[in-house]
Structures are given as structure tokens and as C-alpha cells.
């Protein structure tokens, strides 16, 4: 191994790597912090050379992981981001999405990538993020003192498996290339080895390919690097090389798994549109109402609407709220949740007021609208003295408080007659409108329906019709 590194020194230091490691500092600012014979140093150099050859230095962003390569940013003369343990692929996703022209390199160890960050690894690969991942598999946690990694070989000794890893205790070594090769999106997957000059020569090509794919914006590239951690595995240079060639490569075959770089198409994401015009268009801001004005004469009105989910309880509330808002009143709408949300009962509060609204919850409603019996039984007692209760006639007879006005309304019937049972809520709205209890005008209600069914003309028409039918019924039967 040492021999190999000596051999590599005939190459000059890549331009894209610092001459002097100022960020590292200390007594020997031109030496790396890695142990002699460590695979990280070799891989750094291969990456630096490829960046030089491709002329992409300015565009590169390197993500340093947590692990021995946490200080990878000491060495690379391009943008550097250090990130939490295992999260490099997520961070890389963020950078790549924000900066389409950036060439994003996620550099990770086996604990980082295959253990704590396995989810982020697989998901970024599966999304086909435009990133190059360099995964240093040295079968051990280097930085924290040589614990077992997911890639530790069966029988291999580490300080957390002192008699050697057993499958019974710790399962089997994880094969990352093979796992990633089950996914559709990745463009390039290769396992390389840094054991000797023959392998390093091959590795150099793969490293360059992964970065070329980034230069061309073609997608995700994954390079697994079989490397030595002579420090923790107590090997000399020859021992380390032999270990990689004879043991690791048996478990982890060195080969290309996929190369779609020829066929993959280059993907360029459009620039974000930050203009106010675009946003105003998206939100159709020319279409709003005007701001509410303070009108102390319009006393706060609390409305509660309740029924089964699916009866249009929430949308009836929204239509009233939109009517209030269209009329320049302060308005709020609040749905209640709970276990009832799924198929059970639902309710919402609407407050319409001539002044700023305090609580958005109608504890003591002026108006209670109920489309089913359980809600009526539950909320009738809360209605204010002199308040109004409207309930659907299908509910039948119920005991109601004495000091309120209660009306049984054939809302479902009206809606069916109008063409859709779904609009019983709109029929109810028509009755509310005609009774005048909200002190909002008929036009306000129509505006409410228009904005409630924004743009869906068919729905607007049928609901306006049923609104009128409800109003007519109220005129004939209640006034």
C-alpha cells in the first residue's frame, strides 16, 4: 500500500486540491490527517485528478460526512459543506435542487452511508438525484475507534466483536452496490478497489465517469470503494492490500454493476421565478375581496355547523365565511377534528363580526345548523338564548331547549329535487339567507358560492339554483 502511494506521488498534486492545508493548520500543514496507508487519502487524490481533467473545479461542492473524512474539506479547493452523520445524501439533495449547475459530491464512510444514513442513501438514489456518491467501505468505523460496521466481514474482529463477527449475533455484511442496483433511477454503479496500482488504475476511470455524469447533469452515480483502515485493522501496508484483495473482494466483487451514462438524458431544472407578477398570477390576486372594516354596529355572530362527514358540513361553513368575507366583515372558519374526522361526525365554527375576532370557536352559537341527530343532541344545549337552530327534517323529533327558535328544514329533500343530494348544505344556506339571521345580503351569499366553487361553473350554477330553492322554501314556510 505504502508502495502504491509512493508511486502515486509521481503525479503532481491536483490543481483542485490545496497545496498547503491551511484549514488543518498544525505543525505539518502539508500532510493529511489520515493515518499512513489509509484509503481516504488515495481516493481524495483520484477525485482531485478527475475534477482537474474535467475542468469542473468551480462548480464542485463536496459534502464531508461524519467519520474520518469529516475533514475532507481541508483538502479540496472548492465549495465545502460539512453535514450531520449519515445525512449527506439529503444535504446533497438540497444543494442540487437549489443549484442546478452545482456538481455535488457526497463522500461517506460505511457507518455513515450504510448504517445511520441508509434511508437517506436509498431514497436519494431512488429519486435519481444528480449527485456523485463516493462510499468508502473499509469494513469498520474508523473515527470512533474501530467498531463493527454493517460491512464488517463474517469472522472479522473489531472492538465490538472481539471474537469476529458472527451472523447469529450481527447478521451478514451489507452489499450496497447490489442493493442500489435494484433501483431504477441510478445511472452508474461501480465497486472499485484501492488495493494496488492495477486496481487504482481501474478506479481512476470510474471516479472520472461518476463526475462526468454530474458535469452532464445525467443523474445519480454510486461508487463503492474497497479501502483499508490499517489503523484499526492493525495491518501493515502489504497486509492491508492482501486483505482487500483476498478477503474483501471475495465478499464484495469489484466490478461495474451499471453504466447507463450513454443513454441517460441530461436534465436541466428551470430557474426559480421570483417575480411578484408570477405569484399574483398563481394566486389570482386580482380576484380577492377588500379588507374588512370595523363596524361596531355589526355584533359578533357565532355559527356552528355539524353533521356527518360527507354531508358538506365544512363546506357549508366555508360558504358562509366566504359570504361574510365578501361583505367586508371580519370572518373566521375553524373545523373541529378528532376521532370523528374519519366517517364520523364533523363540525365547524364560523364567526362573522364587525370587529377583530377573538376566539374562532363558537362555544355558544347564535346559529346552530345540524345535519344529523347526534350533533343536534350534542350541541343544542350550547345555543345562546334567543338563538336559532336549523336541522334537517330527516332527523325527526328531538327535545330542544325552550328559549331558542328551532326550525326543521327539508334540506335533503330540496337538494334531491334540485338535482343532487350532495347540496343539502346549500339548501340550508338558502334558508339561512332568507331568514336574514346573518345580516348578510343575498348578493354576499351568491358571491360566497362563486368563490367557494372557484371557477367550476357547473357547480356554481347548480348550487345557486339550490340556494334559491332553499330560500323560496323558507319564504313560503317560515316567513
Amino acid at each position, binding site marked *: 500500500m505504502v508502495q502504491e502511494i509512493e508511486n502515486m506521488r509521481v503525479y503532481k498534486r491536483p490543481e483542485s486540491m490545496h497545496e498547503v492545508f491551511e484549514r488543518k493548520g498544525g505543525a505539518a500543514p502539508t500532510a493529511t490527517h489520515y493515518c499512513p496507508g489509509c484509503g481516504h487519502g488515495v481516493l481524495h487524490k483520484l477525485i482531485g485528478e478527475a475534477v482537474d481533467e474535467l475542468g469542473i473545479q468551480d462548480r464542485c461542492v463536496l459534502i464531508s460526512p461524519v467519520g474520518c473524512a469529516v475533514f475532507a474539506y481541508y483538502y479540496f479547493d472548492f*465549495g465545502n459543506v460539512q*453535514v*450531520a452523520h449519515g445525512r449527506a445524501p439529503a444535504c446533497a439533495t*438540497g444543494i442540487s435542487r437549489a443549484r442546478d449547475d452545482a456538481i455535488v459530491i457526497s463522500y461517506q464512510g460505511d457507518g455513515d452511508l450504510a448504517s445511520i444514513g441508509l434511508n437517506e442513501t436509498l431514497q436519494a438514489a431512488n429519486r435519481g438525484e444528480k449527485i456523485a456518491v463516493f462510499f468508502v467501505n473499509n469494513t469498520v468505523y474508523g473515527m470512533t475507534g474501530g467498531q463493527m460496521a454493517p460491512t464488517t466481514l463474517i469472522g472479522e474482529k473489531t472492538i465490538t466483536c472481539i471474537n469476529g463477527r458472527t451472523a447469529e449475533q450481527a447478521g451478514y455484511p451489507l452489499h450496497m452496490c447490489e442493493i442500489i442496483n435494484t433501483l431504477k433511477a441510478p445511472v452508474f454503479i461501480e465497486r472499485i478497489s484501492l488495493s494496488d496500482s492495477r486496481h487504482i488504475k481501474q478506479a481512476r476511470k470510474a471516479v472520472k465517469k461518476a463526475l462526468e455524469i454530474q458535469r452532464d447533469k445525467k443523474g445519480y452515480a454510486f461508487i463503492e470503494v474497497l479501502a483499508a483502515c490499517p489503523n484499526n485493522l492493525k495491518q501493515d501496508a502489504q497486509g492491508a492490500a492482501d486483505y482487500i484483495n483476498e478477503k474483501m473482494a471475495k465478499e464484495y466483487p469489484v466490478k461495474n454493476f451499471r453504466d447507463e451514462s450513454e443513454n441517460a438524458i441530461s436534465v436541466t431544472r428551470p430557474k426559480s421565478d*421570483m*417575480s411578484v407578477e408570477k405569484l399574483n398570477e398563481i394566486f389570482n390576486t386580482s380576484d380577492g375581496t377588500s379588507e374588512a372594516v370595523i363596524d361596531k354596529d355589526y355584533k359578533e355572530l357565532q355559527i356552528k355547523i355539524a353533521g356527518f362527514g360527507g354531508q358538506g358540513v365544512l363546506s357549508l361553513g366555508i360558504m358562509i365565511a366566504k359570504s361574510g368575507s365578501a361583505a367586508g366583515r371580519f*370572518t373566521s372558519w375553524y373545523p373541529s377534528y378528532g376521532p370523528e374526522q374519519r366517517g364520523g361526525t364533523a363540525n365547524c365554527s364560523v364567526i362573522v363580526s364587525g370587529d377583530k375576532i377573538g*376566539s374562532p370557536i363558537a362555544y355558544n352559537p347564535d346559529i346552530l345548523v345540524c345535519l344529523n341527530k347526534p350533533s343536534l343532541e350534542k350541541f343544542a344545549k350550547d345555543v345562546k338564548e334567543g338563538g336559532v337552530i336549523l336541522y334537517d327534517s330527516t332527523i325527526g323529533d328531538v327535545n330542544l331547549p325552550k328559549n331558542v327558535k328551532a326550525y326543521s328544514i327539508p334540506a335533503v329533500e330540496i337538494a334531491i329535487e334540485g338535482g343532487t343530494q350532495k347540496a343539502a348544505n346549500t339548501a340550508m344556506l338558502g334558508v339561512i339567507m332568507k331568514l336574514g339571521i346573518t345580516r348578510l345580503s343575498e348578493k354576499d351569499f351568491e358571491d360566497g358560492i362563486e368563490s367557494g366553487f372557484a371557477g367550476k361553473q357547473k357547480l356554481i350554477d347548480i348550487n345557486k339554483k339550490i340556494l334559491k330553492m332553499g330560500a323560496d322554501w323558507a319564504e313560503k314556510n317560515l316567513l
Partner: protein
Amino acid sequence: MSVQLIKGNTAVIVGALYAGCDCYFGYPITPASEILHEASKYFPMANRKFVQAESEEAAINMVYGAAAAGHRVLTASSGPGISLKQEGFSYMAGAQLPCVIANIQRAGPGLGNIGPEQADYNQVVKGGGHGNYKNIVLAPNSVQEMCDLTIKAFDLAFKYRNPAVLLSDGVLGQMMEPLKFPEKAIEHKVDTSWAVAGNAETKKNLVTSIFLNFEQQELFNVKLLEKYEKICENEVIYEEYLTEDADIILVSYGISSRISKSAVEAAREKGYKVGLFRLITLYPFPKKELLKLATEKNRVFVAVEMSAGQMRDDLALAIECKRPVELVARYGGNIIEMDAILKKIEEIYEKVDF
């Protein structure tokens, strides 16, 4: 100018878009999910970037990446998801990265339920993750403020290069109110002095939170603390309502402050001198202003919050325990009822001679 009736959660996205935020990364959780839904719909319409992340941890680290690249980026979640994001909060504070996180609080602990609560106060206002850091925390109490304070949060996050949290709750997220749309949109520019944007201007930059040297790490902590001091000096926001002659001052934030305001009005009608001190920034906490109120006059303070006195503790510290601090609280998804506050006010008047 346009006013539209929309949900609080939608207003967060409106605010973010007009604030020049062009990346959203999130994971679904009720009652915050509409923020994700709206982001997935509106961000692509303006070619802005959206990813539904695989987890909250992934989401906050995508945020970390886009923030490191100098962009304005948003994520949103609720209790359980915020717990998972804490690693990211700490790293972002440590790397001095700006971002905005909306927390639409739900009831806990554990899975709890999807009703509203305010019991993420400690995990958000105190930092929450490891290390000496703080988040800037803004507490809206209306749909309008869900939008406006999101914009403010981005401004503060970038001014101080620090995470800012919009601490809201299930009521504010789910309720609809009229929103007055912002009139201008911010065209955010990447700050090349620190961002790592994958270009020649930013090639020299490094985003990191590691200092191996103890002295350096300590110096960095001191630098952070100085930054927080500046924030405390300059960025406190609050509202006072009828506090001047008040015997009793309700202190509250978010949805609870609206119910408190109704309670103040009801109490005044009954002749009780009650006022409201509404916190808008929770960090920085308006210590000086509260201490002044406590020093001026014999009064009783009442913390009104949907948590077990988490904010009350900060209040007691702020007024240096010079006056009694009572608590009106609900938990579990229940909202404080005005009557409970009125009852507390009456109890205090029975006990105390003002």
C-alpha cells in the same frame, strides 16, 4: 391589494413564496400537512423546488443543504416531526445557516393526537437540540400573521444567519380567515460571502460546525451568545392591550392570546381591570418590558397557554418572581375556554387587595 379567505397553513406558503423562498422540503404530519400540500402545488408553478422527503430528518438536512447554498428554504412539521428535526436545528445553528421552520403544534407527548396544543414551547424556544444555541421564535395569532411572520422569519433568519421558527398550532393552521396578500415579492440573492453555491465566487467558502480545538469551540460559543444578545436587544416584538391600569395581566401567545383578549374584554365589562401582554417573539422573550410592568405596580400575572406552564416559567424568570404568576392551561388537544380565564380572574380578585 387582494384579500382572500384562506387557511393558516396556506398563508405560510403564501408568505414563503413572497419572501423569496424557492425550496421546500417536508414530510406529512397532521395538522401541518396542508403546508406540504400547498408547497407541492404552488412551488412548481413558479419553477421553485419541492421535494417530499423520506423523513423529517431527511427534510431538515435537505433544508441544511439548500440553506448552505444560500437559498431561502422552508420546512414545516408538528411535534413528533419537530423532535426528529432537532438534530438539524442544532447543526444549522452551529453552522450559522438561516432557514425557516413552521411548527403547527399538536397534542403530545408521544404520538398524542392531532388536536392543538402549545407544548412544543420548550423544545423550540429553548433550543431543543444539543449545544448552546437558540432559535428565533415567532408566534402568529391569525392567518394574516401566519403569512406576515413567515416573511419576517426569513428576514430575521438571514439577518442573523440563524434558524427561525414559526411556532403556531393546530387551530391557526386549520382555520380560515381573510388574508391580505403581500404587495411585493422579495427577489432573494445568494450571499456570496458565506454560501456554498457551486460557482467560482463561492468556491472558497466552507459551511461547518466542527471546531476540534476547545478554545476555538468556546470562542465560537461566545460569538453565538453575542449574536443572541443582539437579537434580544433589537428584535423583541409584543403587543399590549389595556395593560396600563391593569391589576391582572394575562400573558399569552398564539391562539391562546386571542381567547385571552376576549377574556380581557369580558372582564372589563364586569369592571375588572385586566390587560393582555401578547408575546409575538418567544425568543427573544420580552423580559425588560414584562419586568417593568411587574415593578410599576402591585399586580398579578396569569400565564394563559395550552401547555403545562412551559411559558409561565419564562415569565416568572422575566419578572424575577417579583409578583405572583398564576396559570390557566389546557392540554391534550383542548382549547382554553374564556370562562376558565374569567374564573381565574375572579378568584384572584377574591384573594388579592389591589
